[in-house]
């Protein structure tokens, strides 16, 4: 009898152990999965990383937006760190009125848009020339083209400045437009490279068949190449626009003292004028912080709007546009 009992006990024990093992296996499957990358642990890790990095990326934006709504009391009050006590648009009102925001915005769009369009057109032509045809010294010219990207603007700044002032191009959009037309605009080399990569992916047979049908090179370019390159064109235009819009170093030099200014420069100018009136540490200066942030938000707002409408081009067309440059 006792032997039977011990046998039963032993078998129950064994059964339990097996269950435990199975349970352990299940947990392991759940946590680690078949190949680690499909397990729970891995997912937790991925999302934790995403949230941590996302926080870092969004932190300045949050800081800027919340800070721009603060009143003077909020800035001074230590208890108010993130959420303003009242939603006040006073800071925005000040900036919009003082810099004549909507006119300034139109100016900025004009200043960025026209060079961006010309840079897109010219870099498409140049990229096609490099990608499709063979000519003597092509490799040297290509290397020179890439070198223009590396040269810091400080080297070319003074001679350019003198040249522009000699030909009376300062203070007008021409100072940006002419280089853009000639393929030397802001970061022009990158755009040429993007188009170069893209046009090399277009099958040669397509172009050859058009040639057999008697199409001239220009016709091939406008009727076949350009329609194919729409994603590249969009991404190049967007990048070019954003870079021209944000440019302050050269535009600060070429446009200084003229009525035509980029939006960031205008905000900056207004703020320096304003702060110089009030002494260091005064209350008005404290308030100025919030006004500055509001100015920054207003500067970035058009770009953010543009970005949210076009971000699928930024994101989705990357593999179609040959941006990789290998």
């Amino acid at each position, binding site marked *: 009898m006792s032997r039977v009992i011990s046998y039963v006990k032993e078998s129950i024990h064994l059964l339990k152990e097996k269950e435990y093992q199975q349970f352990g296996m299940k947990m392991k499957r759940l946590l680690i999965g078949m190949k680690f990358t499909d397990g729970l642990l891995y997912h937790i890790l991925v999302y934790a990383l995403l949230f941590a990095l996302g926080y870092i990326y969004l932190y300045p934006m949050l800081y800027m937006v919340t800070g721009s709504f603060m009143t003077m009391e909020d800035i001074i009050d230590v208890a108010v760190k993130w959420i303003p006590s009242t939603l006040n648009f006073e800071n925005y009102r000040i900036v919009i009125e003082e810099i004549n925001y909507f006119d300034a915005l139109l100016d900025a769009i004009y200043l960025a848009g026209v060079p961006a369009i010309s840079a897109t057109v010219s870099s498409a032509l140049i990229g096609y020339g490099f990608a*499709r045809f063979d000519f003597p010294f092509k490799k040297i010219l290509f290397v020179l083209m890439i070198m223009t990207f590396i040269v810091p603007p400080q080297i070319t700044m003074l001679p350019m400045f003198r040249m522009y002032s000699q030909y009376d191009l300062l203070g007008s959009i021409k100072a940006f437009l002419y280089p853009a037309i000639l393929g030397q605009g802001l970061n022009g080399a990158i755009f040429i490279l993007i188009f170069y990569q893209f046009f090399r992916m277009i099958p040669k047979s397509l172009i050859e068949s058009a040639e057999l049908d008697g199409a001239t090179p220009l016709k091939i370019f406008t009727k076949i190449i350009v329609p194919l390159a729409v994603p590249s064109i969009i991404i190049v235009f967007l990048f070019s626009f954003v870079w021209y819009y944000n440019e302050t170093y050269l535009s600060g030099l070429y446009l200084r003292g003229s009525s035509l200014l980029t939006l960031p420069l205008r905000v900056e100018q207004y703020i320096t004028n304003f702060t110089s009136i009030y002494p260091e540490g005064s209350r008005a200066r404290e308030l100025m912080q919030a006004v500055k942030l509001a100015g920054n938000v207003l500067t970035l707002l058009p770009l953010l709007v543009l970005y949210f409408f076009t*971000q699928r081009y930024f994101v989705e067309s990357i593999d179609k546009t040959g941006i990789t*440059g290998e």
Partner: protein
Amino acid sequence: MKKVKDFLKKASDLFDKVKYKLSHNVVFRSDFEYWTFFNVLKIRVTNKRRQAVIGVSFIFIWIVGYLIFALYPMMYSLYLSFFKVRLAGADIVMSGVGIDNYKAAFLYDPYFVEILIEYVVEMILNVPITIVFALIIAMLINQDIKGKGAWRTVFFLPVIITTGPVIQELMVQGATTLPSIQEYEVIDIVLDNLNSALANPIQALFDTILLVLWFTGIQILIFLAGLQKIDREIYEASMIDGAGPWESFWKITLPSIMPLVSVVIIYTVVSMSVFGLNEVIIYIRNVMLGESTVGTLTTGYGYSAALAWIYFIVMVLLILLFVGAVNIKRRSRR
């Protein structure tokens, strides 16, 4: 509508006429076999030559632009860097000083060398970090995660914002350092146990980590495009052979995007170097605008041109160093 059509027809007829006149005149005549210049010089038209002419005419605008807006200014500033340049009204007064400008930059200038070394150390720290973070983020958002579009939107934000005075403003106000990192005094413990030569850059790194991360916009784009080009089947095949995610990262992912790393390095170094808040850039600009005296040398355009050229050369050396390091690693792995 009809009028427009008529007009277009007329215009294209006119263009054809102009084209004909341009290709059939005394100076230049073109027919199927020969290009004739001045009725004397005959060049046989081959396919290769025709291609070359068409190609050059496509990039012609670039050649003109390069000569005017790149080569001429570069050469001119190189030329200026050997002179002492003073502005007298609209004219500039130059007196040759040979390589004194370059000598002064290294021997007499109390700030330049110091700033330059700081810049080099910073770059050596920041560039690898930027690239590693860009790669990590690109790999994270290349996976099947929920809300892919939203995440991508967040991580491409730097493309829009990094440029411009907005970042400067944020930097001044301290929004580019993470307060939460500094509150937890972990860094202080680490820093206390290191000597200052190593600790200072690390301290600076933590202060600007946000700024560094914010330079990753384009790099993420490039890496993401590269990652999407890797064939899924390769991963499946390696999995069947028993490779884990760790091995497949080192053996598949990294080698296939290695060519892109060089591109990313060049982009990162350049964008960080010409960034408006870079110390060296600010210094060069100040030297250019203000005619202060450094040692025995009056600063000004000539001296700042010399500084800019030194800076440019250091930049190129840095790029070569990074690209070289990456490529040596690549070769030894094979």
